């Protein structure tokens, strides 16, 4: 199997699973209890929190564990909206955010908030001038994703943070794709809130965190017990938290070598596809791009068919095609960078891991070439 869908989810690293295992059936105590078994859990949780804080240049008490990226995004937006509603009801985000942000924004719109959705250029980058122009006296939050999950484009986060700070507006970034893949420092980049998800960085599924800078007024999203300093209720998911901590430790350790390797393979495969297949192009910025992301549009064909054929060859990949999502609307990201519907339909996303090899890239290049040709032969849009 050639797994090239690491933006969807990653394999939990064996060392991460090993770190988690003792906390299922041996140190299974509830971290909120007073006895020694519970103290073991608390110690493990504190360690993970510190690891994560260190990875961001944050303080441990600024890290709040959640069930994943979606909850973190929901929390950041809804709680900020609530806490700062008296200051204003205007939020700025982008057209290419993940649905966890966009659908939450729609929810807020129905509740009287006004959302500005920034445009992006053909590469998927927002314009800092448009951002500045969008800020109003009643703007309470700017939420711009660190890197896009489909096309891999990395936004100018430090510059956005600077602008937000200048204007006294809070800045949240959905870093689910970028965290532990590229270096992030919340102070240098003036990030007030940051969402991350464990399963995108070889950690377990069902665990994530929200970084909230000290001083930011924050309400709870999940109400109940006093966990997470009374901010996020629910018995702490200790194995998940330990796994996330171990995954972050691992990701920070291998980041340099992983990045170097992925960029090399990424650009090699991009080159082959560009050179060997007609009527296709790379989506997303060529260099301001996640190290492991490749996104191509192939004219005249449709994504889901491509994916099934790739699967038959043992290759796992993804597409911005509507047909894969059950939603019928093709990727809002691809439309936002200016693709036509039928162009958006024929997109293919390949996201590498540190386990990817040159041999795999070659196999994929060959198979994609064949499949694209086969589907084009079947397509009423293609006349050669």
């Amino acid at each position, binding site marked *: 199997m050639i797994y090239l869908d690491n933006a969807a989810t990653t394999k939990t690293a064996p060392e991460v699973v090993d770190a988690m295992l003792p906390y299922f059936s041996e140190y299974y105590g509830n971290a909120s209890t007073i006895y020694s078994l519970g103290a073991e859990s608390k110690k493990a949780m504190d360690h993970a929190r510190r690891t994560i804080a260190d990875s961001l240049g944050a303080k441990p008490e600024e890290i709040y564990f959640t069930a994943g990226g979606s909850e973190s995004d929901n929390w950041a937006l809804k709680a900020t909206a609530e806490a700062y509603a008296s200051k204003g009801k205007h939020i700025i985000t982008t057209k290419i955010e993940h649905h966890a942000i966009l659908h939450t924004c729609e929810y807020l719109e129905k509740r009287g908030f006004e959302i500005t959705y920034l445009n992006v250029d053909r590469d998927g980058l927002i314009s800092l001038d448009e951002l500045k122009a969008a800020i109003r006296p009643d703007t309470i939050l700017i939420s711009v994703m660190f890197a896009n999950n489909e096309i891999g484009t990395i936004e100018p986060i430090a510059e956005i943070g600077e602008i937000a700070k200048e204007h006294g507006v809070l800045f949240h970034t959905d870093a689910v794709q970028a965290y532990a893949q590229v270096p992030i420092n919340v102070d240098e980049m003036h990030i007030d809130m940051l969402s991350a998800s464990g399963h995108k960085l070889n950690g377990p599924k069902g665990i994530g965190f929200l970084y909230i800078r000290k001083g930011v007024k924050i309400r709870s999203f999940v109400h109940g017990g006093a966990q997470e300093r009374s901010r996020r209720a629910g018995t702490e998911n200790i194995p998940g938290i330990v796994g996330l901590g171990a995954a972050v430790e691992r990701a920070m350790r291998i980041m340099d070598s992983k990045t170097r390797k992925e960029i090399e393979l990424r650009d090699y495969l991009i080159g082959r596809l560009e050179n060997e297949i007609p009527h296709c192009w790379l989506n997303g910025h060529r260099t301001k791009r996640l190290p492991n992301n490749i996104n191509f549009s192939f004219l005249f064909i449709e994504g889901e068919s491509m994916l099934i054929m790739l699967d038959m060859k043992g290759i796992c990949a993804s597409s911005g095609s509507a*047909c894969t999502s059950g939603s019928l609307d093709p990727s809002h990201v691809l439309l936002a960078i200016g693709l036509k519907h039928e162009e958006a339909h024929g997109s293919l996303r390949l996201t590498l891991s540190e386990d990817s090899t040159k041999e795999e890239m070659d196999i994929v290049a060959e198979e994609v070439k064949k499949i694209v040709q086969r589907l084009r032969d079947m397509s009423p849009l293609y006349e050669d």
Partner: protein
Amino acid sequence: MYSEKVMDHFQNPRNVGEIEDASGVGTVGNAKCGDIMRMFLDIDENGIIREAKFKTFGCGAAVATSSMATELVKGKTIQEALQVTNKAVMEALDGLPPVKVHCSLLAEEAIHAALWDYAEKNHITIEGLQKPKNDISEGEEEEDY
């Protein structure tokens, strides 16, 4: 998610291609998901469909239903071909996932469009056949949420 029959028709689609000087050609598109299906029919003087071919831009279900639809209409009379509904195609394929039902409507619509073209070319009316819409809206129920 797909049945074995669907996968078989997707992997080995029957009747892919075009028919030159076809008796009837119909192209339909599903604006919602942006997919397009073109159906070619060769109909003899007795109103029997001798040959059927297709080209499809669409998902696995779209390809498989195109393939199955062409198989089903071959050898049939025009009136019999009108009975090849999307339900019939789906049944022949051992079912489709709910989100893919609309793809099979595309296939039904393509047959109708090709027959309509045939009727127009020959200045006849086919009983029970209405001018096909280009745009098939899907009939799935949306739940409140």
